[in-house]
């Protein structure tokens, strides 16, 4: 297990990133074709204007409280802690949000931006379907036309969410290019945006993509960490010793981590999908086994071959099955503030079953990666120490996948 990297960063100012051009050290930026520059400039200008506008903030907070159901609880998982042995395990219950995952925090924020642009159509890419559902949900609420791009492979894996999106009035567009998963859905959404930029707002689902998306998504998701920090102080009388979150694109992780970055005593662990195992090459862990490159509008760690072609990833969880990662995570890795580790498919499945049985909480397969790592970590820590695990979503959407593994037809 990796050591705690927390003390190596005293000279780093975590509030100075990104710079005005969206760079987190050498990462991030705006690597897009010329046609999109105008749309990104427009989005950035709007966000700069509204970011510190009290009315906008008040509307965002109101929606989070009354529509999403925030704050989400910080739950002490007593039985799980006892069974695991070691540090006290707390769950930040993003699974209790409306629509069942952290994704809605971001779509609420971006939908408010969309409303200010007056554009009547929103598009989104989705992997697990959680972001698609969260986008379809806010679109329904605001009466916006909604198109969700989803890889054919993921449509099969996440059929329940596909049907939810349809019920919400969204059109789900199957993506058949490339590997037919999240990365290709994102390509397709970018193509749509270039073509329909006049009337369309692109709601990106994670802290990746061209500037200003990584910054904007981080800021909307940071409500998770702000709450968790306050709750920790109130409920436990102290800050946690460690934070654990799964990393697909990295939005739930950055949302939890960001408000704690300057708390040097808090160690952080981002858990990537180890798939069939790091040494098999069939995984989705660019921070552990990738190199920096350029994809989807930003520079970041990527999974690619020796010719610079992006390679197909594998994870049991559709939401982590992505060859890139948000640029801020690449930077946090390099400056040594966050430890990035992996959990493979089998470990995640075991954690899914265990938490369900021990606590009566069924985690999403994405979140199960964080749960599995937290168990390992807790065992190495003392009983008076405290870990917060981001339970980024609930597992109902994954029941068909789990049943299939069990050989059961539901």
């Amino acid at each position, binding site marked *: 297990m990796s050591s705690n990297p927390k003390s190596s960063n005293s000279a780093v100012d975590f509030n100075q990133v990104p710079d005005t*051009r969206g760079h987190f050290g050498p990462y991030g*930026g*705006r*690597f*897009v*074709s*010329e*046609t999109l*520059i*105008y*749309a990104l*400039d427009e989005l950035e200008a709007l966000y700069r204007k509204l970011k510190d506008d009290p009315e906008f903030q008040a509307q965002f907070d109101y929606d989070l409280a009354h529509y999403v159901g925030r704050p989400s609880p910080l739950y002490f998982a007593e039985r799980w802690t006892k069974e695991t042995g070691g540090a006290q395990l707390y769950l930040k219950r993003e699974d209790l949000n409306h629509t069942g995952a952290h994704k809605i925090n971001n779509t609420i924020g971006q939908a408010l931006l969309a409303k200010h642009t007056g554009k009547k159509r929103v598009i989104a890419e989705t992997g697990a379907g959680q972001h698609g559902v969260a986008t379809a949900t806010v679109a329904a609420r605001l009466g916006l036309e909604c198109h969700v791009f989803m890889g054919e492979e993921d449509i099969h894996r996440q059929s329940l969410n596909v049907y939810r999106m349809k019920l919400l009035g969204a059109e789900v567009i199957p993506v058949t*290019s*490339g590997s037919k998963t999240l*990365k*290709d859905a*994102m*390509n397709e959404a*970018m*193509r749509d945006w*270039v*073509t*329909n*930029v*006049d009337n369309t707002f692109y709601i990106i689902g994670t802290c990746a993509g061209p500037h200003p998306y990584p910054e904007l998504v981080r800021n909307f998701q940071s409500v998770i960490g702000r709450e968790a920090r306050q709750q920790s102080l109130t409920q436990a009388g102290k800050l946690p010793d460690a934070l654990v979150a799964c990393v697909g694109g990295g939005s739930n992780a950055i949302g939890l981590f960001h408000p704690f970055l300057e708390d040097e005593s808090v160690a952080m662990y981002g858990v990537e999908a180890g798939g069939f195992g790091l040494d098999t090459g069939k995984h989705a862990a660019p921070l552990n086994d990738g190199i920096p*490159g*350029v*994809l*989807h*509008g930003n520079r970041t760690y*990527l999974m*690619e071959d*020796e*010719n*610079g*072609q*992006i*390679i197909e990833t594998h994870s049991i969880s559709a939401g982590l099955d992505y060859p890139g990662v948000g640029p801020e995570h690449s930077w946090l890795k390099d400056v040594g503030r966050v430890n990035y580790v992996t959990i493979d498919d089998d470990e995640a499945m075991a954690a899914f079953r265990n938490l369900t049985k021990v606590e009566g909480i069924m985690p999403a397969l994405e979140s199960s990666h964080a749960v599995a790592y937290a168990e390992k970590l807790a065992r190495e820590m003392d009983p008076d120490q405290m870990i917060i695990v981001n339970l980024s979503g609930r597992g109902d959407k994954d029941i068909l996948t789990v049943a299939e593994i069990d050989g059961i037809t539901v």
Partner: protein
Amino acid sequence: MNRIKQRFESLRQQGRKALVSYVVMGDPAKDVTLPVMHALVENGTDIIELGIPFSDPNAEGPVIQKAHERALEHGSSLRDALALVKQFRETDSDTPVLLMGYTNPIERMGYDTFIENAVDAGVDAVLTVDLPPEEAEEFNEHLKQANMENIFLLAPTSSPSRQKKVTDMAGGFIYYVSLKGVTGAGNLDVNSVKENVTSIRALTDLPVCVGFGIKDGASARAVADLSDGVVVGSVLVNQIAALAEQGETNPATYAEAVSVIIAEIREALDKNTLDK
């Protein structure tokens, strides 16, 4: 002098418009592209724009996107593209060759290695779709030192200040994208092209070529009147796709098919200038 400058110079003297032809390297097979390139030149192409296959070509419409997939199926790479240009140069030392692609394969090879090999192969210019001026400073420096042109796109959505920023860094010619959207989409809006090309010309002495949405001789003529040349891509790739779907494996058949398309466009372009 760089071949691109030379070519525009001689076109200007002849009062002709530039015809830039785009195909994807290795589509649908590695042995097809060389004869296709020669055929393009024989039938009136002034500049060859060679697409470098990429796994995630997100500025391309379905037609060119599929061409990238076909090329990647048998592993065509940037390395192959450079080798191909070198081979092309064995019998054609005049026609400018422009590599068009995405940033990642070039970064993976490394700017220095890429440029060294590109110069050695006889490449004249590079167009990196997803590397706007803000991110291109380092790459641009490298290109300049090697006397290679850095081609940039301008779009209908590019503001006047944006046009200035891009033209300040651009070399070779300005590639004006005639429509909002991906390659191969929609129809031309001639008035908007006219307006934008006029304002670009006020900013730079570089020639302006118009691409995206040029389908035949007639549409080529329409925009050539307003600019210094046209870029033709999706029509060629479409024809290659049709043959690939039929299982055609003879490179000569591909060469003949693109010849017909290019000859028609060349004729229309030249007729246009004579009529004036």
